[in-house]
């Protein structure tokens, strides 16, 4: 149970990395992040019900789809905002989250859905510990994507541009980087990661529209724990959070499992606002 909890950390990682990327580049706290994941889950669900497409394959569909949706949300809505006060983007994205959640509730009802594949209940035994197969696969996907993103940020030109803007936006502008476009792409990448997470973990969870909100909260916790804007930190924080929650469920009560996350969130903000790993460069 503990190990499955850790595997869940893969999901948290993907969410956290995406959200921290968005924050690092644009100083936007993306309150609709979990809902992007939710959209991907439903996408995977419908692809599965319609064409029996394996959810892990639908990652290939969900990721670019969510990239596009993310760019759309940024370009159509977020960019238009005149920053009256600092919390503006948070409120705006919360509104977007509400709209997304409720649109889906209206369209598809609040019923729980799930994807059941041939291997949904399979387990594999590794070093004497029994792991759920879909969870393990999802975790593997998470690791894969994280490494890919890290390589991308480090090596590619676009990745360098993203890091430049995160470090010093005026300087990046002066260097000729098209800040608006790169920002939109960064948002899209964050959304794409959430999309990948949604598709990957869609065979593991029950899905319902409100699940977006729950995961957004988790993502908040991860990015604060890992250091706002710190991609590597978000990775470790994701795993850490999942472990802490598992321990909380085991030792305190499963009802208060979520409270563990909240407490960590508040405590970190108060005592170590830079996060465990520091507000770093990406």
């Amino acid at each position: 149970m503990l190990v499955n909890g850790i595997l869940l950390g893969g999901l948290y990682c993907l969410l956290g990395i995406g959200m921290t990327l968005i924050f690092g580049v644009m100083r936007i706290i993306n309150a609709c992040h979990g809902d992007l994941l939710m959209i991907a889950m439903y996408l995977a669900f419908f692809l599965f019900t319609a064409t029996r497409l394996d959810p892990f394959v639908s990652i290939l569909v969900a990721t670019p789809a969510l990239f596009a949706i993310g760019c759309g949300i940024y370009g159509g809505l977020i960019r238009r905002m005149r920053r009256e006060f600092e919390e503006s983007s948070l409120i705006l994205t919360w509104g977007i989250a509400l709209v997304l959640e409720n649109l889906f509730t209206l369209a598809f009802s609040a019923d729980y859905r799930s994807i059941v594949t041939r291997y949904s209940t399979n387990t594999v035994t590794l070093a004497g510990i029994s792991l759920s197969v879909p969870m393990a696969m999802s975790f593997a996907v998470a690791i894969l994507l994280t490494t890919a993103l890290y390589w991308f940020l480090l090596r590619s030109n676009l990745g360098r541009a993203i890091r430049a803007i995160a470090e010093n936006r005026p300087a990046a502008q002066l260097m000729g980087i098209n800040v608006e476009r790169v920002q939109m792409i960064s948002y899209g990448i964050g959304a794409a990661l959430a999309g990948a997470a949604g598709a990957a973990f869609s065979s593991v969870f029950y899905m319902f529209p409100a699940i977006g909100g729950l995961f957004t909260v988790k993502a908040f916790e991860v990015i604060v724990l890992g250091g706002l804007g710190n991609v590597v930190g978000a990775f470790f924080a994701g795993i850490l959070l999942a472990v802490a929650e598992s321990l909380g469920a085991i030792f305190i009560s499963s009802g208060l499992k979520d409270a563990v996350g909240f407490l960590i969130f508040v405590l970190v903000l108060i005592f170590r606002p830079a996060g465990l790993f520091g507000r770093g460069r990406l």
Partner: protein
Amino acid sequence: MPQERNNAAEPERGASAQALFGAVTRMREFAALGGLLAPWLVLALLILAAATLPFWSAAQYRDYILDLAILVLLSALGGMSFNLLGGYAGQISFGQAAFFGISAYAFALLFQQLALNPLAAMFLAGVVSAVVCVPVGLILFRLRGAYFALSMLAFAEITRLVAQEWTSLTNGAAGLLFSSAFSDKATSYWVLLIIVIGSVAVTSLLVQSKPGAYFLAIREDQDAAEALGIDSTRYKLMAFTVSAFMMGLAGAFYASYFAYLEPNVVFSSVNFSLNVIIVTLIGGMGRLLGPVIGAAILVLTTELFVHAFGQGNVLMSGLLLILFMLFMPEGLLGKLQKEIDRRRSLRRPV
């Protein structure tokens, strides 16, 4: 056209033209005087209309209208609580639901278990929230901006979970059922109306005085405010306690009226924390009557929407939130102020 441009510029004007001009100027002066009185008059009329609502609303619709009115007043009260802390003092909190829920349960306990008079119970329930907010504020006020907002959300969620688990106190998710505090709807309505009017009056006095000015200073630039001798923690706490008290009153009233409490409902971030933000945003942050106007608009448009489409009132809230955030973040009253200023500056020579 500037008023200065008259006889001096055109000496050939005939006597009748001058007389006409004089009359217009006098009318302008009278209108300006009326302009000073008009808001008070309008306000008095509105209060009168509101107070007598149960009488002049058609009998068959009365219950429905009163329900709506109570909803408006409740949202307005919550909005004022958010507005004081967020609009005036600049500390945006996403966790007002915490005080709503805490006072709701406090009321239930005071009223049902201790059989206190409902009005006293409401007041005390509000005090409970005001007391709770002090340690919370002392801990969280070192955080600024979005971080404070989010930690307040975390606080609200923590209280929700605690309420869920502390079944001996709150009966947990099974819910707490008791009897309505007031005999009929109209009485409840009047109680709430008085609470709201009182809150507006208190807020108005507060913001026109030294603490109010200090709130604004903290909002605009906390460090500059400190350099001017403003103990920001002290004044933020002041705003917080009054804000928590008002939200607590709202929660206590809710308990007295609906008489059924459940943690997921009364601590709901969407229904209460977000709701109070939206109404304040629509009406205008930092404007005294912003939340009242915003509440009226939100509730009424949501009602219309639900009548037309059957469901989706939260969707409506979300859409309004996005629309106002993007296109009118200063709110309706803010927009009005801008228009007035614009016209005034056009008339006055710069």
